[in-house]
């Protein structure tokens, strides 16, 4: 379904993906509220929108929109105002390369993985801007912790992805899914394809997920926010629409990281026994199911474990994850060349 005009095509795709992802973010917010609540043995949202409380994120959004727009007195006003938009736009830009089906991708860049990781690190800048410009000592501490943490965990994220790239032979996300769809072994008359998770990337997957949760600043890595120490860390002074931007940005990033992990390690939009011509229709659903599973695990971890201290998480990143990830790359390379 193309209109022939490149610009119009891309514009339609962008709008569709944006709309889908923003509603996806609302669904994830609701899932976090409800699942988190039941894990704590309480009902969670109940009144907004009937007994199930499904309209809670919408109600929250409307509430935030009508709040007073505060800029603290000593704050660097331009930087303060710009920070949330930087975070949200960087996160939205990652959805450009994520494939929902063989043809359902806004732009299948050859540099897919590279582009993804580069763009998502712009959020670090936004967080640091927010922490600095808030004119609040607690926000400053939160912002500094965030800077250190996000920079430290970029590396394991990247290196784990590099191992997959080495194994797939291409940086394009579509190419990576197709590499996982290739037949691995033939048993009798069945062609069996194995996702990278099971093709030797188990440790890589673990490293990627840990680094992803750290990039999202979620428990157990939420030192930058650290609700019981810093009230809300770098987000303390934000209210209204700006807070909504940060909030949405965080949940969009959860979906984005989960989608990337699903694509790199779990096979993306591909599933066995689905014929080629149906993949375009079933692809989003399959990817959605995999993303839902990973998001559930991320939510589950958030509500169960406490948070790591700043120096402990730096220790984990620099002394454990990075060497492991490098070793992973070496092993992947050896296997790729030898077999």
């Amino acid at each position, binding site marked *: 379904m193309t209109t022939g005009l490149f610009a119009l095509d891309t514009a339609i795709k962008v709008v569709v993906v944006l709309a889908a992802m923003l509603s996806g973010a609302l669904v994830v917010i609701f899932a976090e509220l409800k*699942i988190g609540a*039941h*894990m*704590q*043995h*309480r*009902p969670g949202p*109940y009144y907004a929108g009937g007994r199930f409380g499904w309209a809670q994120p919408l109600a929250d959004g409307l509430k935030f929109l009508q709040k007073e727009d505060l800029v603290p007195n000593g704050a660097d006003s331009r930087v303060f105002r710009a920070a949330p938009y930087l975070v949200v736009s960087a996160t939205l830009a990652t959805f450009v390369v994520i494939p929902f089906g063989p043809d359902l991708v806004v732009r299948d860049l050859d540099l897919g993985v590279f582009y993804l990781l580069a763009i998502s690190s712009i959020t670090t800048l936004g967080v640091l801007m927010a922490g600095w410009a808030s004119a609040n000592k607690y926000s400053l501490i939160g912002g500094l912790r965030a800077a250190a943490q996000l920079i430290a965990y970029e590396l394991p994220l990247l290196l784990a992805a590099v191992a997959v790239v080495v194994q797939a032979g291409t940086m394009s996300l579509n190419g990576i899914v197709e590499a996982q769809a290739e037949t691995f072994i033939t048993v009798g008359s069945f062609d069996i394809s194995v996702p990278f998770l099971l093709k030797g990337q188990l440790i890589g997957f673990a490293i990627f997920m840990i680094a992803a949760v750290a990039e999202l600043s979620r428990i157990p890595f939420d030192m930058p926010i650290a609700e019981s120490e810093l009230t809300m860390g770098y987000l303390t002074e934000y209210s209204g629409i700006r807070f909504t931007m940060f909030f949405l940005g965080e949940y969009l990033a959860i979906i984005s990281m989960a989608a990337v992990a699903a694509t790199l390690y779990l096979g993306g939009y591909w599933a066995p026994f689905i014929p080629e011509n149906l993949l375009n229709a079933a692809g989003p659903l399959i990817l959605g199911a995999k993303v839902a599973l990973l998001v559930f695990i991320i939510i*589950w*971890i958030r*509500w*169960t*474990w406490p948070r790591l201290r700043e120096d402990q998480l730096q220790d984990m990143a620099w002394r454990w994850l990075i060497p492991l990830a490098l070793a992973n790359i070496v092993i992947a390379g050896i296997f790729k060349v030898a077999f």
Partner: protein
Amino acid sequence: MSQKRIAFPFPGLFKGMWVTLRTLFRKTPTVFYPDEKEIPVPRARGVISLDTDACTVCMLCARECPDWCIYIEGHKEEVPPAKEGGRVRTRAKLDRFDIDYALCMYCGICVEVCPFDALFWSPEYEYSEHSIAGMLHDKERLTEWLATVPEAPAVES
């Protein structure tokens, strides 16, 4: 001390996750107020009610209240003699008996010291107001609470 060591595959983390997963599927014990209400025990100290017939304006409750939140005014009335030729008796009549629930500590000292059984505890708790002035319950309102006083509950032997 061995309890403090951190073992590699981190079993403790997964035990915790199992507890959370199990709780996910249990029914919540929440009472959905105001659709459902918890019924307090009969002995719960919710509100104090007054039996004006029993009150003799002895002022003991007002004196013993640690917060001095009971305001009592009364006057003496003459009552004709019971028999012919007897002397005129005086009886105290209650004009004003207010309890300020914004100050009340719910300690129960007034109920205890009353020698004439005029004050009773009731487990009613839904009397929030929008203004503090509404928390001053006057004689009539205190008498209304009397209907909510439960029967003496059974006691442990």
